[in-house]
């Protein structure tokens, strides 16, 4: 099974702007990698370059030892010879072909004899549960069915590299859950290397073996999901991964100098009491790490908080607090018995410290200090 390497890949669509800047990325053999990032950060561009639909301005793309693109060495393999599978964001089914013909197309291009073609297409359609609609046309299918057909069309040729561009974004919540499970199963059964584009961080956290977070054409961090959550490389990743997003409080006030009162100062004092002087520029606290009530044994950081609003959301409660000079959100998974105006204790044992460049210095988690 293949691993995909991109080295020094950059892409400009003309003009001075780069959609992807100097990307070094290795998708390990058999990985389920999510490319995660905000809209316009270059995820689709990256995926299309791997597929060969877009050519890099510089850099090399290879699968195992086979170089697919190398601007420097003048090597290029066209998409039709790369043998990858790609699912487009809006499916791109061929409207003039029936579902069966859509799925058989790739096999036909590979000159697979008709009976075998039929069998393989049917198997692929069964796998995604649309074999009942085999003789219909794409326009006669629901969005979810179309999406599955697009998947089956890709699976029929049994590619070892699967590329998916936000394939679940057009589905309703229930179908999306179902398809996530389906994709995981397909990944496990086929052992293919998958690159999956999404801007939904929950999707990335639940499905991926590895996540690559991109922003403005740059790779921000490449890590396993929980690793990414526990040790975000920088402020961008910290804010982007996790929901609701991490609160990051700047230590240096806008006027310069160092404030000695306020939430930031309080958090910094606590951190420095644990690890010695470290002069962070910002401190981040995840809402779900911020607890209400008396801390168990006086460990951790604590401060008094005024409740401003309680927002129940089914299984969790979001509480808007004012702590010293700052507004913070806390998420609780147990009912919160408080009314606006109440004064409570809030505390946490987890925080992330960032330097002036936004790079994470270290994280505190209970007694542990993670570099």
């Amino acid at each position, binding site marked *: 099974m293949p691993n995909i390497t991109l080295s*020094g890949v*950059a892409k*400009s669509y*003309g003009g001075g702007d*780069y959609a992807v*800047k*100097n990307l070094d990325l290795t998708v*390990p053999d058999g990985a389920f990698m999510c490319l995660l990032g905000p809209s316009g950060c270059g995820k689709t561009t990256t995926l299309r370059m791997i*597929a060969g*639909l877009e*050519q890099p*301005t*510089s*850099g090399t793309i290879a699968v195992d030892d086979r170089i697919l693109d*190398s*601007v*420097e*060495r*003048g*090597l*290029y393999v*066209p*998409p*039709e*010879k*790369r*043998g*990858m*599978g*790609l699912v*487009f964001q*809006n499916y*791109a*089914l*061929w*409207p*003039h072909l029936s579902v069966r013909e859509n799925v058989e*197309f*790739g096999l036909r*291009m*590979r000159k697979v004899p008709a009976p075998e073609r039929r069998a393989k297409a049917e198997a692929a359609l069964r796998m995604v549960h649309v074999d009942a609609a085999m003789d219909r046309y794409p326009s006669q299918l629901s969005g979810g069915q179309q999406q599955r057909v697009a998947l089956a*069309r890709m699976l029929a*040729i049994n590619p070892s590299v699967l590329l998916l561009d936000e394939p679940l974004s057009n589905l309703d919540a229930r179908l999306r859950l179902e398809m996530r499970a389906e994709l995981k199963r397909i990944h496990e059964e086929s052992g293919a290397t998958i690159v999956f584009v999404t801007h939904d961080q929950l999707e990335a956290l639940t499905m991926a*073996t*590895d996540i690559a977070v991109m922003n403005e054409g*740059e*790779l*921000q*961090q*490449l*890590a*396993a999901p929980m*690793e990414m959550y526990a*040790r975000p*490389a*920088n402020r961008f990743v910290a804010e982007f991964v996790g929901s609701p997003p991490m609160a990051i409080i700047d230590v240096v006030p806008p006027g310069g100098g160092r404030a000695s009162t306020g939430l930031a100062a309080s958090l910094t004092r606590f951190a420095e009491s644990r690890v010695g002087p470290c002069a962070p520029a910002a401190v981040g606290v995840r809402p779900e790490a911020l607890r209400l009530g008396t801390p168990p044994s006086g460990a951790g950081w604590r401060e008094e908080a005024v409740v401003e609003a309680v927002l129940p959301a089914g299984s969790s409660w979001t509480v808007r607090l004012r702590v010293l000079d700052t507004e913070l959100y806390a998420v609780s998974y147990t009912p919160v018995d408080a009314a606006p105006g109440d004064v409570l204790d809030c505390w946490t044992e987890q925080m992330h410290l960032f330097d002036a460049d936004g*790079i*994470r210095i270290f994280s505190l988690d209970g007694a542990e200090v993670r570099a």
Partner: protein
Amino acid sequence: MAVATKAETPPSPPPPPPRLRRLVYRLRVLRHEPTAALGLILVVLLAYLVVAPLVAVLSDAFRVQYGDDVHAGQQAGEWTGYYLWRVLRSQISGLLFWEPLLNTLVIAVGTTLFALVIGGGMAWLVTRTNVPGRKWLAGALVVPYMLPSWTFSLAWLSLFKNERAGGQVGFLQAQGIRTPDWLAYGAMPIIITLGLHYYPFVLLLVGNALRRIDVQLEDSARILGAPRRTVVRRIVVPLMLPALSSAVLLVVGRVLGTFGTPYVLGLPADYRVLSTGLFQSIRDRSTGVASVLATVIVIIGVLIVFTDMRLMREHRRFVTVGGKGAMDRLGDLRRWRWPAFALGLLAFGVSVLVPILTLLLSTVTRTPMDLKTFTLDYWFAERLPGAVGFPHGVFRGAEMWEAAWNSLRVVGLASLICAVVGLLVGYVVVRGTAPKVAAFLRQVSFLPYLVPGIAFAAASLSLFAVARGPIPALYGTTFLLILVMAVTHLPYSSRSGIAAMTQLGVEPEEAAQIAGASWWQRMRRIIFPIQKGALVTGVVLPFISGLKELSIVIMLTTTGTQLLTTLSIGLVDYGYTQLANAVVLVIALVSFTMTYLTQRLTKSSLASGIGG
């Protein structure tokens, strides 16, 4: 899994590899990507077929032509202002240019007003009132546009012709009523007959605009206390302005390039317009003068279209999105309902029934319209005494059939080329691998739209009449006819090609590419099958319009390459009125039937074929 954190310094894009390396890579990519080659081929093709003729005619206008060296006092081939002087400032320039220009203007203005009054009025009737049978009227009143434009002029002659020109006289004259020249020929009949042909144009454009106006806009003005007249003046008319100005400019543009009607109704009275003047100069082999005239027509045509586009852009901010109520409420005409219907019927009668019946009757009677002299000889006789050049009925002998076959062949092939090239232009533009190529194709394929057909034909003659380099002289070949016909219809087909491909997007093709399909397989199995419908309309619409085309082909046909349209005009020249009428009826029947069937089958509206 190791944690790759962001580097200390943010990665800036690496310096692009050396130019040569990039070139090698680029070529490697292009080898697998025939789109680029296709784009290049199309660029060369269009540059040669569209741009080169215009350059050639411009250069002919300023170069001494063979045989003119004595008059110009310069060697043949030298640059000269002689023709410009001859056309604009010499003693004969009044005859050559100023008078035809004035006549053209008179006719353009007259026709436009005529078409505006009838077309605008009828548009209002069928879209905004409860006139009985509005659906039927809306369809029936478009029929004149499906007939060849000079059908009406032949009908006019059949009614009003006097003995001034040779051949059979018209109905009135045959009844002993003398028809004065001003009634039989010249400005007035030309304006009326052209107006009858072009009012559907206004009807469609204005009707569409009226339909789009939100009634609520009017309602709110009424509620604010504006009387009905003020509402019309302050709300409706300003909102209609874009459609009106567009209709006016398009009609003017068409009149500028139209040949048949002014030829049939103008020439007997020596009433010349620019298009017939151009034709005569070509026929007299005064290439230099013809080139100047063609250039002038091109310039006026370009100005008109640019003005239109300019106005459209300015008016765009007026566009209002029609609300739901837009269609439901129709003005109640009350006791004027039936008179209004009668008016609509009158328009239909005058613009369709009268001309067609007149032509039909004239072909089946020996004395005009006198049923006592009923005969089918003009259609079927083996021998027609007295007709030397065409001594038999139109359905006998080879001439009509040959012309019909030529028409079918030339127009059919041209339409096919047009549709395929249009789709390919759309393909290259949408694939967008080379933005400059795409922009060039988009603009150049639109260029013939700016140039009235007759001027474009003259331009093509400049380029192709003589052998140039490896390309032999093409004058008199059907090949040239096909080329010119295809090029002049290219703006419509490339526009619809671009629209069709834009709507499809690149992803279906990319999906096929990922699935392992080569370029040919993608074209054969994905692009063309999906665009089958667009391709069929892309063939049929130019075919219908090409079948009726006269202005473009009149200068390019020779005795060996007659088309139905030129055959009919040739018969007019001979004075064989009945035979000419019969041929026009055949064209009208074919083109009407095809238009009707196409609308039925493809549900496409004629409006989309008009004025692009």
